[in-house]
């Protein structure tokens, strides 16, 4: 059967080495070029100046004040009537820090300028003592210096914070990725969801207490320690907790205390904000203090954020990434984990891997929802050799951080030219055929012990059968069960021919090595022809003439080296076939690769005698 390279027609005259990676069946690049991890996620979007609606408490019988102006600072205004009566008679006090301090003795008027560009209008009517009006003013603010859809080289977390704003989705992805030393990192921000809403969660403090103590809140891999004083009121405790959250710039949320309710609002808009979860520990809290948290209940006691809506659109980002080239291959760690965006990304990565382009890329996505949802995503939208989907059911880490850290591991370890392919102290030793079994995700958050019922052999087996890479908590570490691709179906049949991620990466690496050798071979042999028919007395091809047999020798040498590197095996049973295409006048080769299996399982029957 003739060897066919997709897109390489018989009349294609463009000189090059054309490689086609076929799973289950580069252009002028070095085989040792660096591998980059590109992070895709949201930077913190700009905040428009706004004044929120006025809330009235304390009777609600007097006139309702209105607001106007352009705030120049973020403020929580409180206006409280201290002397009742008509406009010009009534007196009020006001605060711009949520009641912590007040300006007192202000006489009412049709309009009163408070501070920071905010004015209130007091319509005619009888104002009532004790009525309180409150509203929030937000100044126009931009966060981060980066432009969306622009690629940045990232070498420090500080740089990411400056570019994308601390606590943003993308800055936190950088934080997770750079915890893998040696990774070559770039990042590109996708614009936040147009018209999207922020996810949030509300913490309500209640009860009363007479001693001090501590409440520990856990959000991803950070603990927020709120020290409770015996002198705290519900309001001052709320403020104290607010300062704790807002004091950590990497916190993915903005905290805002109002009376006894502390609201955490995710810094970036969109539905992925709902994938954050909050956990808390009351073991050292003072007796009598209560904490209740809104949101969707999770196994083991945590709560998931709610209210985030809107999906961003990766189309403009992909347009930028379409021109990115790869020396060996690149990885993408992608925050977007909704079906529509993943389908777009998958299509582009697939297109770039085509023989006439040969820009190899692999994508890594995270998920912390339900087993059903992740199975559907892997089997329908993805089902793709160049995608891996890391999953922890109801996991505490945001999926974007999981994708970033696993993507960094893959980019670094699989980018090494060779390795022992073992895991030592939980760290894979690297190489294109890398074994991630039990590899530790070093700074991701282990599962709460109260939620360990979510992990079982049965679930892991089902997930691995469905193209999902599960993680498992072992002791106080989050580990990878087995790193696989999402390829799991061929038509209606299960298809595990490209199961381990190494089975996707090794063919890419071998393609690059063969391409590099091909350029050398073409340079050394500027002419080409069929193998001499020595049976009929033809002489050897002259110096400088490439032949199928000559090229076959080169490929076999590469395969033997790869066999030594434990990338492939059984070369003798899978020899390359090279032939002369007389129509196109070129050498065409078919190179089978049997990727060396990894040592995943041992079966031992222990027989007592």
């Amino acid at each position, binding site marked *: 059967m003739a060897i*066919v390279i*997709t*897109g390489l027609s018989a009349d294609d005259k463009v000189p090059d080495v054309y490689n*086609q*990676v*076929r*799973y*289950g*069946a580069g252009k002028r690049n070095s085989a040792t070029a660096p591998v980059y991890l590109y992070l895709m996620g949201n930077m913190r979007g700009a905040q428009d100046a706004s004044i929120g609606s006025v809330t009235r408490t304390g009777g609600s019988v007097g006139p309702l004040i209105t607001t106007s102006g352009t705030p120049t600072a973020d403020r929580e205004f409180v206006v409280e009537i201290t002397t009742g009566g008509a406009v010009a008679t009534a007196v009020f006090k006001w605060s711009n820090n949520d009641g912590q301090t007040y300006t007192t003795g202000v006489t009412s008027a049709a309009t009163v300028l408070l501070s920071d560009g905010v004015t209130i209008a007091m319509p005619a009517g009888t104002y009532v003592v004790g009525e309180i009006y409150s509203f929030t003013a937000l100044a126009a603010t931009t966060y981060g210096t980066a432009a969306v859809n622009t690629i940045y080289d990232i070498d420090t977390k500080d740089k990411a914070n400056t570019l994308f704003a601390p606590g943003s989705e993308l800055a936190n992805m950088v934080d997770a990725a750079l915890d893998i030393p040696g990774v070559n990192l770039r990042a590109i921000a996708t614009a936040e969801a147009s*018209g999207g809403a922020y996810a949030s969660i509300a913490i309500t403090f209640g009860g009363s207490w007479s001693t001090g103590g501590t409440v520990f809140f856990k959000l991803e891999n950070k603990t927020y320690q709120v020290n409770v004083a015996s002198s705290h009121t519900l309001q001052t405790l709320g403020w104290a907790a607010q300062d704790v959250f807002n004091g950590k710039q990497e916190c993915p949320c903005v905290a805002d205390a109002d009376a006894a309710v502390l609201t955490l609002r995710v810094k970036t808009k969109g*539905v992925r904000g709902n994938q954050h979860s909050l956990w808390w520990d009351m073991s050292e809290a003072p007796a009598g203090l209560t904490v209740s948290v809104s949101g969707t209940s999770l196994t083991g006691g945590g709560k998931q954020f709610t209210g985030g*809506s*809107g*999906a961003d659109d990766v189309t403009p980002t992909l347009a930028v990434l379409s021109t990115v080239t790869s020396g060996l291959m690149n990885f993408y760690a992608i925050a977007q984990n*909704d*079906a*529509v965006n*993943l*389908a777009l990304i998958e299509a582009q990565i*697939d297109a770039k*891997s*085509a023989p006439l382009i040969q820009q190899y890329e692999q994508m890594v996505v995270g998920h912390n929802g*339900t*087993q*059903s*949802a992740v*199975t*559907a*995503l892997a*089997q*329908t*939208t993805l*089902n*793709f*050799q160049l995608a891996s989907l890391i999953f922890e059911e109801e996991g505490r880490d945001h999926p974007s951080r999981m994708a970033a850290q696993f993507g960094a591991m893959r980019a670094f370890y699989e980018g090494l030219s060779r390795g022992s392919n073992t895991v030592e102290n939980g760290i894979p030793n690297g190489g294109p055929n890398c074994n991630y079994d039990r590899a530790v995700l070093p700074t991701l958050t282990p599962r709460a012990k109260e939620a360990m*019922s*979510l992990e*079982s052999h*049965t*679930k892991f*087996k*089902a997930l*691995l*059968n*469905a193209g999902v890479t599960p993680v498992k908590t072992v002791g106080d570490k989050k580990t990878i069960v*087995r790193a*696989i691709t999402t*390829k799991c*179906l*061929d*038509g*209606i*049949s*299960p*298809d*595990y*021919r490209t*199961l381990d991620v190494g089975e996707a990466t090794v063919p890419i690496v071998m393609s690059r090595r063969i391409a590099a050798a091909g350029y050398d071979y073409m340079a050394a042999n500027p002419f080409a022809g069929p193998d001499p028919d020595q049976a009929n007395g033809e002489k050897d091809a002259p110096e400088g003439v490439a032949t199928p047999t000559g090229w076959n020798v080169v490929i076999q040498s590469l395969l033997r080296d790869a066999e030594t590197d434990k990338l492939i095996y059984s070369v003798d049973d899978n020899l390359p076939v090279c032939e002369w295409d007389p129509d196109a006048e070129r050498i065409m080769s078919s190179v089978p690769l049997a990727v060396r299996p990894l040592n*995943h*399982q041992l079966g031992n029957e222990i027989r007592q005698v």
Partner: protein
Amino acid sequence: MSRFQKNIRVVSNPFSSLDHKARPCGIVLLEPESGYASSGYIGARISRATTVTVAPSGDLRGNRQDTVFDFDATPVEVKATPYYLGFLRSGALLPADEKSAAVAGVKFRPVAEAMAATKAAAAAEFDRLYGEGSFAELTTGSEAAPQPTTAPAHEETAPMKTRKADK
């Protein structure tokens, strides 16, 4: 509570997940049993008729496909294992009767009613994600709703390409 494991009757909830074309894909794999390869789904199967390979003309890289599921609303009896109970609690499976709902600790709603509610919620969520009217735009003119069939509630798929049942 009985110490003996019960059987429950469940129905797949197609709209518990939507794919990138807003088609229902709320699948639940059969529980892998020790020593056996697991393939096939509860109340669903990959559609032979509409699942197609996606490949440009002449592209032999192959294996990309547009997977579509056929769903069957016939109740399936399974053991009340933690595996299936988890899917009932997450809404990927629906209890077919009150007894099964009680075993799972979930509220019982008639299947058609529960399925319709899930579909409405999924459509609303799809619109919230991708813009008002997105769900209708993708599904109008196509038959997105699951169609009860006379086929078995679950069907073993064709033999897998390699035997890697327990990974």
